[in-house]
């Protein structure tokens, strides 16, 4: 088959500046830099050559978001891209969609290419649903005639018939997302580039979206390239999979193999699922271990599965009314939940300083994919200062699809996975003179 997409030696460099000041690129800074540079040049005309990195006012660092990416995609392939946060997935898609230019190398594209990096780009809150369909459609590259032809299908797919002439600002976020996807689903590109947008809406709508994607993919000559955190989607959809890590392609091949590799990668970078503590770390804690449903040590937990936390303590004899608090926080330090263990029984069992093991089970862990930390705190009543052990262990949550992942919205959706049920939308008349309740 013909090659429809080629990526050759693509790298992308960002400059991160470590200036204490924050905010937008200010002209002031640029001018100060130039002036400072000029000053140095005047003072040391020989030393300060143009290529010399500037020092003093700002220290900036090069950051390669992508490094030496090479691959080709043939017509009809469905290729998934996986990788941890910051692996370069989104940057790669942005380059493939021509949103931002690579620093080196090039991308070659053949045929009609559509990219969906976000659903509903360009929606305007003041415009009605009807107006937004035309606007968003044209932003995505549909002609006016094409939009007119598909208008009814789009509206039916999104289920917003009654709200067509309502300004979008009155739409619920669910309706907005459904309409956005409906428009996107009715594009007819030859190559489709998607970033994590399947993971929106309620589960029923998701099924509809997936079915639409399958229909698109099954046409044989259509090429799809997409990023997803839902490994199950990747596994069921893709004919090939790319694994990105640190801006490089580190794995490529059939999805099952690459996903395994990815999980292995996570395991390595997960900081270990097991940790022992020297006597000085915390007076009583000896060992902490994460166990998955199969009972083996794991740094990766599948969303919605049970998680066991095994803790080994010793020297409990002298403790009075001891408690152990286990809390979980996000990588940026937001505390999500805490559970408390009463260790009185463990103390009795310890009978002196024999080590004791306790296991805490957290059923159907409701965390969205991401990285999390476990904090421990040992307390003895009544008046002893608690002994916290912050960031004792790191673990990752991944999503393998299934009902528990149905509400996975990807990054930015929050922290926990909550099930929800939606009623059918109903028209409400905000201006109706309904008699206020409680009055005759």
């Amino acid at each position, binding site marked *: 088959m013909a090659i429809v997409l080629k990526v050759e030696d693509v790298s992308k460099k960002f400059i991160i500046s470590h200036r204490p000041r924050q905010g*937008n690129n200010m002209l002031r800074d640029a001018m100060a830099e130039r002036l400072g540079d000029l000053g140095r040049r005047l003072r040391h005309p020989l030393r300060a050559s143009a290529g010399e990195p500037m020092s003093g006012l700002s220290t900036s660092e090069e950051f390669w978001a992508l490094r030496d990416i090479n691959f080709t995609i043939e017509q009809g392939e469905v290729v998934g891209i996986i990788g941890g946060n910051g692996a370069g997935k989104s940057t790669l898609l942005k380059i493939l969609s021509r*949103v931002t230019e690579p620093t080196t190398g090039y991308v070659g594209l*053949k045929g009609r290419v559509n990219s969906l990096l976000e659903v509903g780009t360009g929606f305007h809150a003041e415009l009605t649903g009807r107006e937004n369909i035309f606007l968003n459609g044209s932003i995505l590259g549909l002609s006016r005639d094409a939009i007119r032809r598909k208008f009814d299908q789009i509206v039916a797919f999104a289920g917003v018939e009654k709200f067509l002439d309502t300004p979008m600002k009155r739409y619920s976020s669910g309706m907005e997302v459904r309409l956005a996807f409906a428009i996107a689903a009715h594009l007819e590109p030859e190559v489709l580039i998607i970033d994590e947008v399947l993971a929106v809406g309620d589960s029923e709508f998701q099924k509809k979206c997936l079915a639409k994607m399958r229909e698109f993919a099954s046409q044989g000559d259509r090429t799809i390239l997409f990023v997803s955190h839902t490994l199950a989607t990747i596994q069921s959809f893709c004919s090939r999979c790319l694994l990105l890590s640190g801006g490089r392609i580190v794995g490529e091949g059939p999805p099952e193999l690459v996903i395994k590799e990815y999980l292995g990668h996570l395991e390595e970078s997960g900081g270990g699922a097991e940790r022992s503590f020297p006597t000085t770390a915390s007076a009583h804690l000896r060992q902490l271990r994460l166990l998955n449903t199969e009972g083996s040590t794991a740094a990766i937990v599948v969303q919605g599965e049970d998680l066991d936390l095994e803790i080994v303590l010793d020297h409990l004899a002298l403790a009075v009314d001891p408690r152990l608090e286990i809390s979980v926080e996000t990588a940026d330090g937001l505390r999500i939940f805490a559970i408390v263990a009463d260790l009185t029984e463990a103390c009795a069992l310890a009978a002196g300083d024999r080590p004791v093991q306790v296991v805490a089970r957290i059923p159907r862990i409701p965390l969205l994919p991401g990285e999390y930390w476990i904090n421990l705190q040992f307390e003895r009543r009544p008046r002893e200062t608690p002994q916290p052990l912050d960031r004792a262990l790191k673990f990752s949550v991944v999503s393998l699809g299934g009902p528990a992942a149905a509400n996975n919205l990807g990054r930015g959706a929050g922290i926990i996975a909550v099930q929800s049920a939606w009623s059918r939308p109903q028209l409400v008349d905000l201006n109706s003179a309904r008699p206020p309740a409680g009055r005759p």
Partner: protein
Amino acid sequence: MKEFDIYFGPRFGKRQYLRDLWNFRGLLYFLAWRDILVRYKQTVIGIAWSLLNPLFFMVVFTVIFSRIGHFPSDGRTPYPLLVFSALLPWQLFASGLTQSSKSLVENARMVAKIYFPRLLIPLSSVVVSLVDFLISLGLLLAMMIYYQWNPGWRLLVLPLFLGLGLLTALSLGIWLAAINVKYRDFQYIVPFLLQIGLFVSPVGFSSSVIPPEWRLLYGLNPMVGVIDGFRWCLLGGEAPLYLPGLGLSLVLTLLLLRSGIAYFHKTERTFADYI
């Protein structure tokens, strides 16, 4: 080398740009349509707003320059007509420049997520100003009927000067839109520039009050040529055209436009990284 339809990378330049602009012309229409729709949503008097502003300035300038300052009009032109015929292109320029210079930043989400030739955004934003202009033009025609003023055949040349006015707004607007992506300082510079411009440009007075030896230098302000042209078209023979000044304005505008497009094109492929 022609294995693919599109090549994208630092080594590949402008070849496809014009074609892309053409392919996306529908988007230009929709963006302008959106801006016009949004502009008058949830306003009670709607388009009347675009009339109030020039009317207000016309009254104030007539009082200040004619009644208090005793500035001469062009020939026998009624002073309100003199002011209004200059306010039209000035408003077109001012709102065109304001809209286009902040247009990219206001459409940041689109720029960060979707590919299309970015030049469409400042281009479409100027169209809204054009709509306002046409509405004000209607008001001017009404005023002309009131003053029983017949501009004559020169009215037919007006589209040329309208085009020049749009180009002037665009040439600066494209520059500023691109710079604004990286340096937001310029969003504060534009209102300041326009406030000053309103008084240095011959809006409240006729350019004939400028001493002849300074007229050419005065043409360095590109709006002088546009405003003089408007007056020449609208006020009949009362306001003679000063051709060297107009030529200078034209050359300057074209230079600004050419360099603006070049700068825009050079930086647009990394807009998404900075916006």
